[in-house]
């Protein structure tokens, strides 16, 4: 009996630790493996000529980047009578990801979309193993085991200037009258970091233009992408402590921040896709237009104009980033259009001045002269 109790005790402690520390505990990783199969089966319309690969840490219906991408796939597939399917690995290891790609190709995939920077090493193996299959990969560039970039003619690496969309958001929020702002990221992966830095820089720019001295920024990476009481409580405490608006860049975790905003009269800026339907507290969303880019890439592939072997960057100039469903009080559409145009044309180096993930190791290193940033580690 004693033995039994201690078996349970050790299990409990192990799981409590896992679920708290690791973003993907053993139990949930196993679960996501199982959920991929039935979920994918219910969406498929055949063998899956178009395949979407997503990370083990993500979910398809995340109201954010995976969902945006999937919408583009569905729209194109339905219009052109092509079947589509999504795949999710058991865990984010190179072996699991490569196996996943083998499965997709065996099931008939001709066009594979990789929507995760977790796949960068596995992607280099996939694109060389299947030269007849066309690939696009978002947010990263395939690298081999030694860290060298691999760009074969059948792959297109697509990146977004996330920092420009949040630059717009941060700038607009300060212009609209918000003085205490917060940024909550998921894990500090490059795309999330770019969202964060752009937001900070947008705030700083508006702060300088208006000559303010009372602008404060809270900044945090939660370490996961999940809606948990911890994330809800953190957001609630920020609102309670005076933060007026939080930009959350963490996929499904956003739901916790929306809940906190609803309970504490706060407002939120969403991310990736237009999230305004999720909560009345969302005053705008900093989006990268995965849906359109996915759709257009598929179209180019079908028309035979797919031009691979390179990296493309979508910025304001290409209409790759934007603010969606703006509900500001003072910041007008005209001001937005003007700012957007300046970003697109890089007037006075406004867009090239925005820091990106490679510029600074942590947000408190960004040189700010106007806004005051508190980095919560």
């Amino acid at each position: 009996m004693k033995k039994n109790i201690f078996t349970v005790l050790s299990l409990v402690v192990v799981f409590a630790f896992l679920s708290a520390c690791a973003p993907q505990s053993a139990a949930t990783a196993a679960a996501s493996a199982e959920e991929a199969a039935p979920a994918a089966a219910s969406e498929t319309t055949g063998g899956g000529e178009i395949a979407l690969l997503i990370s083990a840490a993500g979910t398809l219906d995340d109201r954010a980047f995976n969902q945006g991408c999937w919408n583009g796939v569905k729209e194109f597939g339905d219009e052109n009578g092509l079947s589509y399917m999504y795949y999710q690995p058991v865990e984010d290891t190179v072996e699991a990801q490569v196996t996943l790609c083998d499965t997709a190709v065996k099931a008939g995939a001709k066009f594979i979309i990789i929507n995760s920077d977790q796949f960068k090493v596995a992607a280099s193996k996939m694109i060389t193993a299947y030269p007849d299959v066309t690939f696009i990969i978002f947010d990263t560039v395939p690298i081999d085991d030694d860290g060298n970039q691999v760009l074969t003619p059948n792959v297109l690496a697509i990146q977004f200037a996330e920092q420009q969309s949040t630059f717009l958001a941060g700038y607009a929020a300060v212009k609209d009258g918000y003085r205490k702002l917060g940024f909550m990221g998921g894990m500090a992966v490059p795309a999330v970091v770019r969202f964060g830095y752009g937001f900070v820089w947008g705030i700083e720019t508006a702060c300088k233009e208006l000559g303010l001295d009372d602008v404060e920024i809270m900044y945090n990476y939660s370490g996961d992408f999940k809606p948990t009481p911890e994330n809800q409580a953190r957001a609630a405490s920020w609102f309670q402590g005076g933060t007026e608006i939080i930009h959350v860049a963490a996929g499904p975790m956003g739901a916790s921040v929306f809940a906190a905003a609803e309970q504490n009269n706060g407002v939120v800026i969403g991310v990736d896709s237009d999230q305004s339907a999720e909560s009345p507290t969302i005053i705008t969303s900093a989006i990268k237009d995965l849906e359109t880019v996915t759709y257009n890439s598929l179209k180019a592939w079908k028309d035979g104009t797919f031009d691979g072997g390179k990296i493309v960057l979508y910025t304001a100039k290409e209409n790759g980033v934007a603010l969606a469903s703006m509900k500001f009080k003072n910041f007008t559409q005209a001001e937005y259009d003007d700012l957007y145009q300046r970003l697109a044309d890089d007037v006075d180096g406004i867009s090239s001045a925005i820091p990106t993930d490679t510029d600074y190791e942590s947000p408190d290193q960004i040189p700010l002269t106007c806004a005051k940033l508190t980095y919560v580690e």
Partner: protein
Amino acid sequence: MDTITFIFHQMLNFSIPLLIVALGGMFSSRCGIINIGLDGIMIIGALASFMFIRYAEGYISSQTLLLLAILVSIVSGMIFSLLHAFASINLKANQIISGQALNMIAPAFSVFVARLFIGDSIISFKNTFMIEEIPFLSQIPVLGDLLFKNIYLTTYLGLLVLWASHFVLYKTRFGLRLRACGEYPQAPDSVGIDVQKIRYIGVLISGGLSGLGGLVFVLPNSTNFNGTVSGYGFLALAVMILGQWQPSKIFFASLFFGTLKTMSAIYSGIPFFNTLGIPGNYYKLMPYLITVIVLILGPKSLAGPKAEGLPFEKGMS
């Protein structure tokens, strides 16, 4: 004062679901069946109740809707826990494995069902369930702010469950029989009590409470349910063990856990804690560190029900 009220309310978000689920786990353990499937049952309870809320939303007033959703979560949790009861009581299977099976199937089942019925693995809901103020009672100094403002019906329900658990376990004949089945099932068997029936009821109670816990857990913390309760079923097991399988101690253990968890999440937003300058990781480490210390220091009192985890063969001793 505002800060204290705020911390208290955040703490309830953590503590009440932990309390309810830990009490559920206690009923199962006390009748001799280890139920480590609490996490999975929470997921099923949340799944069923939020599916119900999604379809019934807008037709009835929000508090009635919540009451009905509570019923749905309890019933669905009970039904799901029957799997565990059948495997461990009738088939005499290893209870750890059968409990873990529930944990593994639940998230996958949740995604599958949600996609099947609503075409989306995430079930969104509108949170209209918070009671802003209860007339008269909210005027009581201090207590009024803490307990009768901005509160959920489920908080009171949690306290009711606590009282009921204590009453049932210690003041009723059924409670005595339940405890006997967990300590030495041969004894109740010798006087003609159906041990299997008692154990079935124990597991069903744990299923009902865990299902309810799933609903209570998701309600204040998100605007949707996406097939996970972030491992809080396991945390509830820890609360149960820390609370030594006794309702009153489980209550304090859940408050203790809730408070530490709250501190670890909110220190950054409260100026007082910011000025202390303690690195955030210490706050995050605390709940686990203290649990481990308590578990190490208190092995004597952590005996648990003696027959827990052992299948019962009628007429054998």
